[in-house]
C-alpha cells in the first residue's frame, strides 16, 4: 500500500509538471498548427498520463486521456487541422484532466467528475461519423468539425460571423451541459471503459510491457537524435529534444510513475541528475543557516572587540583567519541553500499565454503576450505568492489597458495589442515588469473617479502628483470600469496586488502615458528569511528596517522641515515627501534633545513613499527574521525581531504597517518647543515643587525660610551633579529651579546647559541666585538658559515673588 502511495505521489508530481508546460505549448500550437515538434510534445504528455493512470487504475482519467491521445494522434499525422474550435475542445479536456488530477491528489480517487460530455466532443471533433449517435448539440459540433475545410476559403467577415455563431453555440451548449450533468454520469463511463477495467492481470501486464517498450524506443530515438543534432531536421515525426526553455524534460517522468520499469531502465545506465527533496527539509536547513548567520555576526563582533584589546598579539592573526573563513563559508553556504530553494519564474509565467488567449476571446480583443526572462530564479515561497498579483495585473491590462481592435486602428495603432512580461535580476531583487501598449492611465480621470467614489477628497486630489494619482488604482473600492464584467470592475483586484506585494516587502512603480500604454514594475526581494537591513537609532533604541524598502537616506537640517496641514513634509528634489519621526511611531520617550540635524530614511513600499526621521544611522547588516512569539504577535509596526552581534534583540520595522500608522500619528516633528507637559493637577501649594541648588548650607536655609510660607515642596541639592541626578531620577516634577552659580564639581552655567539638553526640561524655569552681578555674568546666565537673575543679598519677599511668577503660583488653584 505504501509503495502504491509513493508511486501515486510521484505520478501526481510528474503530471502537474507536465501539464504546466502543456498550457503554453497548446497556445503556441494554435499559432503554429503545423509545428510537429510541438504536437509531438503535447501528444507525449497525454500519452504519458494515460499510461500511468491506467497502471494506477484511474479509469476515468485514462478514459479521457485516451480520447485526447486519439485526437492529438490524428493531428500529428495530419488527419486533422487544429483550428480555434478544435483547440477549445482540447483545452477543455486539458482543464478536465487537471481537475481530475487535483481530485486524485485530494481524495485519492478520480471518481465523481463528469468526463463523458468532453469525451464525446473530443470524438466528435476527431471524426464526424461516430458522433451521429450523440445528442443534437453534438451533431452541430460535428457539422462544424466537418465544415472545417471551408474556413480557409472564407472571407474575414465570414470567419468573424462564424466565430460569433460558434461562441453562441458553445455558450448554449455549456448551459445545456450544466443542466444535465447530474443525470447521466457514471453508468455510461462503465460502458465506455471496457479496455482496462475488464482486462485480466496478464492483459494489464502486457499493456504495461507495451508502454514500456514504446517508451524505451522513444528514449532511444531521442538519445540518437541528440547525438546527431543538426543532421535530420523534420523528416519523420520523431520526438526531438526539447528546446532549452522547456523546464523538466519529460524523459525521466514516466520512469518514476511506472516503478516496475525502474529496475529495467537502470540497466540502461542513465544517471539521475536531480533528486526530489521535501520542502520541509529545505525550510529546516534554512532555519539552521539562519542560526549560523547570527552566530557568524556575533563572532565578527567578538573578533573586533578582541582585536581592540589585544592589539599586536600574535594569536590575533590566527583568530582573524578563522573568523574570516567561517564568515566566508557561512555566506557561501547561505547562498547555496538559498539557491536550492530557487525556482524559475517561468513556473508562474507559463499559465499566462493561456489566460491571455482566453481573455482576448472573451473580450473580443487582439492581444499578444511576449514573455522574457522566464529563467530568472527566485525563492519558492515568493514564486507561490507572486502568481495572484500578476494575474490581476495582466487581467487589468487586458481589460482596461488594451483597447478594442477598432479603437486601436482609429488611434493609428496596430490592431494587435501587446503585453510584455519581463523578469530580471537587479541586485538583491527580482524585477517583474508588465508593459502594455494600451490606452494608458489618465491621472486627471483617476482623481475624478476617486473623488466620485469618496476614496479621496478634492483637496487631497489637488495635492497629488501624477505618480500618486496612478497609485489610486490600488485603493480598495476603486474601479474605472463603467460596467462590472466577469473580468473586472469590482475594484478588488488591484487592492490584492498591493497587499500581496507589500507582504513580500516589494515595491510597485507605475509609469504611464495616455495613449501610449502603461508600465508596471514590481521589485521584490529574492528571499524572505534572511534579509539585509538598515539599522537606525532613536534615543537609546535601535530598529532594523528591511533594506528592500529603503530607497535612500538623506541628512537634513531642522529648517528643511515644513508643516503643511499639520503634517511635516520636506522637499526631496522635485517631490514633496511627508515625514514622520520614528519616535512618534514607537512611543520612544525623547529624553535628549535632537540636534540641529536629522537623518531621513526614505522608505518606499508598493507605490507609496514616506520619510522616516531617525536620530542616527548605524549601518547595514544581514539579519535573520525571528518571530516575537505567540504572546507578542501582531504588534502594529513590528514585523519581528532579530538577534544582533552583541546578543541583544533588535526589532524589525514592518514598513507597510508603519506607513499606515504614520497617517494617524500625531506629529511632533519640527515643533519641539511645544512639548507635551505631564503636569499633574495642582490642588494644593505642596503640589508645586522647586529645587534649590546651592553648595552653602546657609544660603539654602535662607531660601527655604523665604519660601516656606508658600507651602510649596522644596528639594535641595548641594551641587550641579547632584541636581542633575535628582532630575534624571524623575521622582519629582519640578516647576522651577533656583541655582547658585559658584559651585564645586559642576557650576550653575554648566548645570543649566545640561538641563536644557533634555527635551522634557526645555521650559523649566531656571533662576540664578548669585552674588555675581556683572553684566557679563548676566549675559552668560541668559546664554545658558536662565530666565531670571537674582543677586544676593535679596529680600525674602522678592525671592518669593520671582518664584511665584515663574511657577504660575495660584493660577491653577
Amino acid at each position: 500500500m505504501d509503495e502504491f502511495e509513493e508511486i501515486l505521489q510521484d505520478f501526481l508530481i510528474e503530471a502537474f509538471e507536465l501539464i504546466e508546460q502543456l498550457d503554453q505549448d497548446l497556445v503556441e500550437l494554435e499559432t503554429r498548427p503545423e509545428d510537429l515538434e510541438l504536437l509531438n510534445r503535447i501528444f507525449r504528455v497525454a500519452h504519458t498520463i494515460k499510461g500511468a493512470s491506467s497502471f494506477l487504475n484511474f479509469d476515468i482519467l485514462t478514459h479521457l486521456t485516451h480520447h485526447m491521445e486519439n485526437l492529438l494522434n490524428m493531428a500529428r499525422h495530419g488527419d486533422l487541422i487544429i483550428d480555434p474550435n478544435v483547440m477549445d475542445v482540447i483545452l477543455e479536456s486539458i482543464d478536465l484532466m487537471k481537475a481530475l488530477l487535483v481530485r486524485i491528489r485530494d481524495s485519492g480517487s478520480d471518481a465523481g467528475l463528469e468526463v463523458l460530455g468532453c469525451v464525446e466532443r473530443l470524438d466528435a471533433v476527431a471524426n464526424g461519423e461516430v458522433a451521429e449517435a450523440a445528442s443534437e448539440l453534438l451533431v452541430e459540433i460535428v457539422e462544424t468539425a466537418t465544415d472545417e475545410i471551408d474556413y480557409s476559403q472564407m472571407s474575414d467577415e465570414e470567419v468573424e460571423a462564424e466565430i460569433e455563431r460558434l461562441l453562441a453555440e458553445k455558450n448554449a451548449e455549456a448551459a445545456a451541459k450544466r443542466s444535465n450533468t447530474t443525470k447521466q454520469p457514471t453508468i455510461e463511463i462503465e460502458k465506455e471503459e471496457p479496455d482496462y477495467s475488464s482486462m485480466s492481470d496478464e492483459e494489464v501486464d502486457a499493456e504495461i510491457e507495451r508502454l514500456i517498450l514504446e517508451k524505451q524506443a522513444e528514449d532511444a530515438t531521442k538519445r540518437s537524435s541528440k547525438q546527431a543534432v543538426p543532421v535530420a531536421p523534420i523528416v519523420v515525426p520523431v520526438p526531438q529534444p526539447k528546446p532549452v526553455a522547456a523546464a523538466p524534460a519529460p524523459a525521466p517522468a514516466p520512469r518514476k510513475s511506472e516503478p516496475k520499469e525502474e529496475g529495467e531502465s537502470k540497466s540502461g545506465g542513465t544517471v539521475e541528475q536531480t533528486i526530489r527533496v521535501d520542502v520541509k527539509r529545505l525550510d529546516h536547513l534554512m532555519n539552521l543557516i539562519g542560526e549560523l548567520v547570527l552566530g557568524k555576526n556575533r563572532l565578527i563582533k567578538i573578533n573586533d572587540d578582541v582585536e581592540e584589546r589585544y592589539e599586536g598579539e600574535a594569536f590575533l592573526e590566527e583568530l582573524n583567519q578563522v573568523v574570516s573563513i567561517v564568515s566566508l563559508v557561512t555566506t557561501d553556504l547561505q547562498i547555496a541553500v538559498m539557491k536550492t530553494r530557487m525556482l524559475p519564474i517561468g513556473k508562474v509565467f507559463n499559465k499566462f499565454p493561456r489566460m491571455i488567449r482566453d481573455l482576448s476571446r472573451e473580450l473580443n480583443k487582439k492581444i499578444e503576450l511576449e514573455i522574457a526572462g522566464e529563467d530568472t530564479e527566485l525563492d519558492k515561497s515568493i514564486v507561490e505568492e507572486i502568481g495572484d498579483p500578476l494575474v490581476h495585473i495582466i487581467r487589468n491590462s487586458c481589460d482596461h489597458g488594451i483597447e478594442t481592435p477598432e479603437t486601436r486602428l482609429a488611434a493609428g495603432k496596430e490592431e494587435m495589442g501587446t503585453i510584455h512580461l519581463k523578469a530580471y535580476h537587479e541586485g538583491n531583487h527580482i524585477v517583474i515588469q508588465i508593459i502594455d501598449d494600451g490606452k494608458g492611465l489618465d491621472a486627471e480621470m483617476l482623481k475624478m473617479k476617486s473623488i466620485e467614489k469618496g476614496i479621496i477628497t478634492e483637496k487631497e486630489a489637488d495635492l497629488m502628483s501624477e505618480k500618486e494619482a496612478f497609485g489610486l488604482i490600488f485603493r480598495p473600492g476603486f474601479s474605472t470600469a463603467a460596467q462590472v464584467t466577469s473580468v473586472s470592475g469590482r475594484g478588488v483586484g488591484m487592492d490584492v496586488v498591493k497587499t500581496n506585494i507589500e507582504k513580500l516587502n516589494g515595491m510597485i512603480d507605475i509609469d504611464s502615458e495616455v495613449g501610449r500604454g502603461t508600465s508596471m514594475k514590481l521589485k521584490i526581494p529574492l528571499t524572505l528569511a534572511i534579509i539585509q537591513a538598515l539599522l537606525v537609532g532613536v534615543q537609546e533604541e535601535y530598529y532594523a528596517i528591511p533594506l528592500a524598502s529603503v530607497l535612500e537616506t538623506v541628512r537634513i537640517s531642522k529648517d528643511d522641515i515644513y508643516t503643511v496641514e499639520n503634517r511635516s513634509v520636506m522637499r526631496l528634489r522635485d517631490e514633496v515627501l511627508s515625514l514622520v519621526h520614528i519616535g512618534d511611531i514607537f512611543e520612544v520617550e525623547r529624553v535628549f534633545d535632537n540636534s540641529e540635524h536629522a537623518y531621513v530614511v526614505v522608505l518606499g513600499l508598493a507605490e507609496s513613499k514616506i520619510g522616516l526621521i531617525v536620530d542616527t544611522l548605524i549601518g547595514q547588516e544581514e539579519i535573520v527574521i525571528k518571530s516575537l512569539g505567540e504572546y507578542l504577535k501582531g504588534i502594529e509596526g513590528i514585523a519581528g525581531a532579530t538577534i544582533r552581534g552583541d546578543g541583544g534583540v533588535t526589532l524589525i520595522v514592518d514598513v507597510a504597517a508603519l506607513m499606515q500608522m504614520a497617517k494617524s500619528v500625531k506629529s511632533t516633528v519640527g515643533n519641539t518647543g511645544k512639548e507635551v507637559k505631564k503636569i499633574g493637577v495642582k490642588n494644593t501649594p505642596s503640589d508645586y515643587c522647586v529645587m534649590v541648588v546651592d553648595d552653602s548650607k546657609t544660603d539654602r536655609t535662607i531660601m527655604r525660610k523665604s519660601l516656606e510660607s508658600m507651602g510649596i515642596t522644596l528639594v535641595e541639592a548641594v551641587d550641579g551633579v547632584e541636581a542633575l541626578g535628582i532630575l534624571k531620577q524623575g521622582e519629582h516634577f519640578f516647576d522651577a529651579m533656583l541655582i547658585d552659580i559658584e559651585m564645586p564639581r559642576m557650576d550653575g552655567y554648566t548645570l543649566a546647559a545640561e538641563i536644557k539638553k533634555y527635551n522634557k526640561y526645555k521650559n523649566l524655569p531656571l533662576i540664578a541666585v548669585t552674588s555675581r552681578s556683572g553684566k557679563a555674568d548676566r549675559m552668560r546666565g541668559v546664554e545658558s538658559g536662565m530666565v531670571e537673575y537674582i543677586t544676593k543679598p535679596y529680600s525674602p519677599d522678592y525671592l518669593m515673588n520671582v518664584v511665584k511668577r515663574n511657577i504660575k503660583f495660584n493660577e491653577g488653584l
Partner: protein
Amino acid sequence: MSEKLQQIINKQNRALVGDDKKIDEVIQLVGFIVGEEEFSIPILSIQEIIKPIPWTRVPQTPSYILGVFNLRGSVIPLIDLRSRFGLEVQKHTEETRFIVMKSGDDVAGFVIDRLTEAIRMPKHDIGPAPETISEAESMIDGVGKQADRIVTILKVHKLLERNF
C-alpha cells in the same frame, strides 16, 4: 504472543498509574517574592531561572511588558510581575531574577523580586483560591498552607495568556 504482550502492557500501565498517584499527592513548587507576598508556581512549568540580562523594549504594549530578550537564540517576551500585579515598579536588585515559564508552546520570562525556596507540598494542604475573584479571571490556582505562612499558587497558563 500478542495476548501475552497485552497483559504485560496492562500490568505496566497499572503500575504506572499507581506510581502517579503516589507522586501526585505531593506537589513541588518554587516560591518567590513579588512585592510583599510570596507566590509559587509548579516546578515543572519552569524552563529556567536566570539573572537579569538586557532586554529590548517593544512599543504598543502595556507597561507591564518590559520587552523581549534573547535566551540562547530565542526571542522571548519579558513581563514584570510587579506591575502586572499593579504594584509600584522598583529598580532591579542583586536578588532580582527572570523566571522563564512555559505552558505548551507559550514561553515568557517573568521578573520577580527574589526567590525563596523549592517547596514540597502535600496536595491536601492546598486550598481553593479566595472566592471573591471570579474563577475565569483569577490568576490564582490555589492557596498552600504551611506551618508558618501562606503561599499563593499561580496559574502559569493564565500568566502566559495574552490579555491586551
